[in-house]
């Protein structure tokens, strides 16, 4: 107890019991994979947002009081504008490093949203949301929504023409809500649009309310990761009962700590070299002008795209009350469906699978054809809407008719996701069959051997056990089957109709499947030199669903992916 470090440690431990926590956490194991960095990018770009945002609050004035500009930017001198816009100009032209921080902040926001969405895609396609992580999926989903709120509220603060038109659109959407819409608009703007209350209110939302919630939920998100320990990709030695990787100290302190600086550094590089949101060119908000090709930040494009695609004819008047379905459907119903499907997916899949066990080894996306295809089709729908949100830019860049583009995208919104679903599902099944083939026959060697008898064969190199394990480690999942409607005494069973519905959903998920090679199949292929005559697969195990032995697994043979 002589060194200062030991003395400090002793001081802290006597008062907090820190030693136990250090012992517990310092050697905590985390698995390694590049795709696990996506969530880290989200976290670190959020920290970057907090740092740059704090800098900006020192100079930004959240006020709609009108002032006359007299700063250095000549083209706006003498123009009347809000203090919010004037202080944004001051940040750009007079605060040294102010523009850099503004651009860091804006780029970090775009990367924050992009990394949240790609992280979510990783979690989705690998099935990391399965038990016991369903709740953390919901926390992450809420963070996505809060991220959108943070982005939109911040984007609107400079009070320039572009963001003002964005607010005008929000006002239009809000007014479309039946019964309370007009009051909603008054609630937001403190009276008529644009009013003088909005910027200060948005400022509070943007720097206190939303980031406070994000911070709390990020804490919860990470706590739940530590609680359940991180998932891991399948591989030799990895099971649902262990976690294989590197210890937090020193490996991840260096790697993850270093990665924060890399993320911040890349954002700084973008802010240094790529201009973003040059509000001095747009000018202060005025309800009259708007520039052609005006677009929101990328994560809002899908909403704008939905608004653009909707035909106007569906606005209806009922008993003299106006219901603008041409706004409500694209701005509320479509995103409502998209987001509800996303949030509820883990629960729907668990219901269709009838699986109550904990899962810590991730799925390879090909081994879950329905899930992968469903995720891709959601993404394609999102992408079509993003394209629709850029239809004017597509028209001007490719010299196409905006009306044609809009009509094509209107159809594409329905056709493309369906086509993507089918293609993706077929690709997954094909990849699984390819896995089976490699396991059964080994790698193609490229060597042709001729026997004395004149017979030619291609030499295949068998897989080693580690290569093979990757391709056979997953459990075959079979559709749930319904037990008979009547029990052994001929009494009609309660809940039979619900079971039928559940079995139908389960078939939708798992009827088309390719099962992994079993040791018997491998042995058969080695002894016969072919796998054309496969023995039938073992019949399905009875599964206990919902505490009742009412649903049993299908016993169709493996490999019958149709």
């Amino acid at each position: 107890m002589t060194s200062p470090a030991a003395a400090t440690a002793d001081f802290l431990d006597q008062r907090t019991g820190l030693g136990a926590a250090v012992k517990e956490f310092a050697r905590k194991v985390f698995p390694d994979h590049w795709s696990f960095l996506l969530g880290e990018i989200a976290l670190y770009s959020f920290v970057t947002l907090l740092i740059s945002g704090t800098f900006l609050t020192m100079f930004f004035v959240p006020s709609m009081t009108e002032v006359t500009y007299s700063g250095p930017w000549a083209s706006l001198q003498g123009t009347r504008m809000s203090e919010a816009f004037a202080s944004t100009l001051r940040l750009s032209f007079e605060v040294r490093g102010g523009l850099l921080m503004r651009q860091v902040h804006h780029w970090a926001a775009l990367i924050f949203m992009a990394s949240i969405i790609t992280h979510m895609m990783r979690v989705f396609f690998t099935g990391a949301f399965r038990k016991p992580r369903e709740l953390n999926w919901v926390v992450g989903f809420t963070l996505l929504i809060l991220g959108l709120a943070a982005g939109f509220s911040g984007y609107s603060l400079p009070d320039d023409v572009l963001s003002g038109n964005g607010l005008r659109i929000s006002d239009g959407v809000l007014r479309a809500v039946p019964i309370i819409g007009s009051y909603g608009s008054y609630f937001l703007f403190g009276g008529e649009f644009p009013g003088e209350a909005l910027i200060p209110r948005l400022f509070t939302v943007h720097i206190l309310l939303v980031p406070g919630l994000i911070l709390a939920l990020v804490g919860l998100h990470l706590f739940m990761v530590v609680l359940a320990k991180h998932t891991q990709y399948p591989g030799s030695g990895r099971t649902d009962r262990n976690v294989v990787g590197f210890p937090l100290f020193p490996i991840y302190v260096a790697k993850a700590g270093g990665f924060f600086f890399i993320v911040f550094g890349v954002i700084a590089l973008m802010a240094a070299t790529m201009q973003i949101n040059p509000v001095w060119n747009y000018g202060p908000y005025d309800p009259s002008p708007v520039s052609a090709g005006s677009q929101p930040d990328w994560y809002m494009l899908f909403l704008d795209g939905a608004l653009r695609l909707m035909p106007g004819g569906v606005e209806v008047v009922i008993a003299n009350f106006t219901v603008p379905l041409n706004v409500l459907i694209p701005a509320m119903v479509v995103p409502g469906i998209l987001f509800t499907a996303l949030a509820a997916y883990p629960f729907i899949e668990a219901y269709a699978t009838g699986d109550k066990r904990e899962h810590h080894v991730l799925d390879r996306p090909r081994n879950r054809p329905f899930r992968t295809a469903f995720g891709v089709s959601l993404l394609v729908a999102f992408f079509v809407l993003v394209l629709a949100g850029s239809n004017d830019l597509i028209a001007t860049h490719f010299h196409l008719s905006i009306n044609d583009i809009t009509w094509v995208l209107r159809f594409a919104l329905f056709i493309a996701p369906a086509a993507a679903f089918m293609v993706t599902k077929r690709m997954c099944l094909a990849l699984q069959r390819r896995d089976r083939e490699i396991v059964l026959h080994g790698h193609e060697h490229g060597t042709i051997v001729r026997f004395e008898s004149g017979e030619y064969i291609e030499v295949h190199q068998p897989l080693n056990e580690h290569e093979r394990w990757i391709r056979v480690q997953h459990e075959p999942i079979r559709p749930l089957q319904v037990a008979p409607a009547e029990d052994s005494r001929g009494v009609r069973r309660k809940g039979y109709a619900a079971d039928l519905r559940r079995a139908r959903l389960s078939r939708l998920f798992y009827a088309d499947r390719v099962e992994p090679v079993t040791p018997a199949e491998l042995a058969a292929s080695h002894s016969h030199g072919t796998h054309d005559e496969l023995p039938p697969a073992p019949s399905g195990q009875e599964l206990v669903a919902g505490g009742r032995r009412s649903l049993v697994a299908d016993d169709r043979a493996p490999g019958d992916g149709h």
Partner: protein
Amino acid sequence: MSDDLELRDTADQLPDRFENPGFPPHEQRRGDVDPRANKFSERIVVALFAVSILGTIAMIAAYFAFPPGETAASMQRSNLAMGLGLAFALLGIGTGAVHWAKSLMSDHEVAEERHPLRSSDEVRAQAVEVLKEGAADSAIGRRTVLKGAVATSLALFPLTIVVPLVGNVGGDWDVASFKRTMWKKGTRLTTDPLGRPIKAADVTIGSITSVIPEGLEETAHPLDEKAKAVVVLLRLDPRDLKIQPGREDWQYDGIVAYSKICTHVGCPVALYEQQTHHLLCPCHQSTFDVADGAKVIFGPAKRALPQLPITVDTEGYLVASSDFTEPIGPSFWERLR
């Protein structure tokens, strides 16, 4: 399941699933076996941290050397110099730390056991017992009136915050003002944003002008008024103009005025195509035919742009004959009430 298995030949005595083969052999890095490679990695890490130090110095130097100045170019120079310094300061630390971890720290994977998150049955039973004891102690089950009083008071007290908040937050809550603009009989049409009155004789065929009511700047809330009252003024060849029934005297010699606020979600309808007389909203591409009552011909809007009835005063200036006869801008629930 067991019946099936017994019928099969010996190959089927194998297990249903493959066995997990256990950890693959560890592959050593060059630095693990070659001390020189190890030393080299260390030097790279030191160099990367040195880059960071230089980056920080460069950033501070740029802070003093490059003021943002008064032009876009000087501002961008300042931004670039400081930004590059910042980027190198950060990337040096980041890449240095990651390279250190990857090349010099142990790359032996370790395994940790997982335990089910579920509490044991014993712990669950104890938890239930604790709750039961607490409930019995407070006798919450029997004291129904007390329970009701607690629930009601907890449900009501947030109103002390919500009522004043909601009462104030919407201003006067007079949503009927959506239906009125500041145009009235005799209000002169003036140019946007300078506010100069417009003589009918000065409006040329094929032209389009953004127009605001005279006296806009003198109102209490000019932006709020402008957001409702802004109008586009066009003059068409009278042969092209289809005059709408009942609106014969709303135009003056081919000069028509329409609300500039899109009936979809309220963007300014700012793009005019002279040849086709189409007015296009750049936000969502609703397209209006100004030769035919500004009716919608494409896009997500349903209703035509409201027309402002105009005429000329004794001095030949364009004036409004009245306010709009319908609410301008996006639809809302009580629009027609």
